[in-house]
């Protein structure tokens, strides 16, 4: 079953190691909340803001989740140090989406997916399903992988912080483009599909795609 999805807004941020201009001080004014935000949380808040999305259904995806906090916990256990409760509560895959909901007071449905290389495509599929019951949905995929020792794993030279987001709506318009999952240099594989869609959005005024549920 297919749903035609129109892209309303699109946003992308990336950095070889650490993103500098996430504007978190402006976007999250309460310091006591801001200080807890994980890297992926700051990226998601930035992307959603760029797409003018505050409250409503959100579908978030990350293949690798909260690696910095995960490694911190593993190191604590390995070295027989006490595990930080803050690191643990921030280590679940839905951390970024949850913090966005807390910052914006978003009480709507929030789903988090983690599907390896096909994460960003699967996130859009879930977004399309959510559009059957909701006017507008925000879909995004983020990898925040700047942890100590990441070089061991980063054989393909992906940028360590990468996030893409779209606000989308259902449409009766005909699809005017097709997106593939061709990998691009520097883009984490889990984001390939969304990066290709983003590139199309940068070059066309109106983008309508057909999404298989």
């Amino acid at each position, binding site marked *: 079953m297919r749903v035609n999805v129109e892209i309303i807004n699109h946003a992308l941020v990336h950095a070889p190691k650490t993103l500098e201009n996430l504007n978190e*001080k402006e976007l999250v004014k*309460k*310091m*006591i909340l*801001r*200080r*807890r935000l994980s890297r992926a949380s700051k990226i998601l808040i930035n992307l959603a803001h760029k797409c003018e999305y505050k409250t409503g259904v959100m579908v978030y995806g990350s293949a690798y989740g909260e690696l910095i906090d995960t490694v911190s916990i593993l190191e604590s256990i390995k070295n027989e140090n*006490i595990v*930080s*409760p*803050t690191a643990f*509560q921030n280590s679940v895959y839905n951390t970024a989406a949850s913090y966005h909901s807390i910052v914006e007071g978003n009480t709507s449905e929030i789903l988090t997916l983690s599907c390896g290389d096909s994460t960003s495509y699967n996130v859009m599929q879930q977004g399309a399903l959510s559009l059957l019951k909701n006017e507008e949905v925000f879909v995004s995929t983020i990898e925040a992988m700047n942890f100590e020792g990441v070089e061991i794993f980063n054989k393909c030279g992906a940028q360590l912080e990468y996030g893409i987001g779209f606000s989308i709506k259902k449409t009766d318009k005909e699809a005017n483009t097709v997106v593939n999952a061709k990998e691009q240099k520097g883009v984490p594989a889990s984001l390939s599909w969304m990066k290709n869609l983003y590139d199309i959005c940068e070059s066309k005024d109106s983008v309508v795609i057909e999404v298989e549920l």
Partner: protein
Amino acid sequence: MVKIDTLKEKLIEGLSLEDIEIDEIEDDMPLFGDEGLGLDSVDAIELTLILEKEFGVKVTDMANAENIFASSSSLVNYINEQLEN
């Protein structure tokens, strides 16, 4: 004797408090709750870890935690009392 400013420094560092100077945390300012600094229950646990790691003080009187952790001055008093014994 642990100085109150040293404690505040460790609080800022250990609880990842941003854009706040030591003298902005008043000695008697409530640490918890919206009226004061705004720390929460997870910070309370992190605080016990900070006390142990930075000052070698174990908080054994958890029933009285609310009073011990009420403000920077109550906290530094507790630390110094424990260190004396």
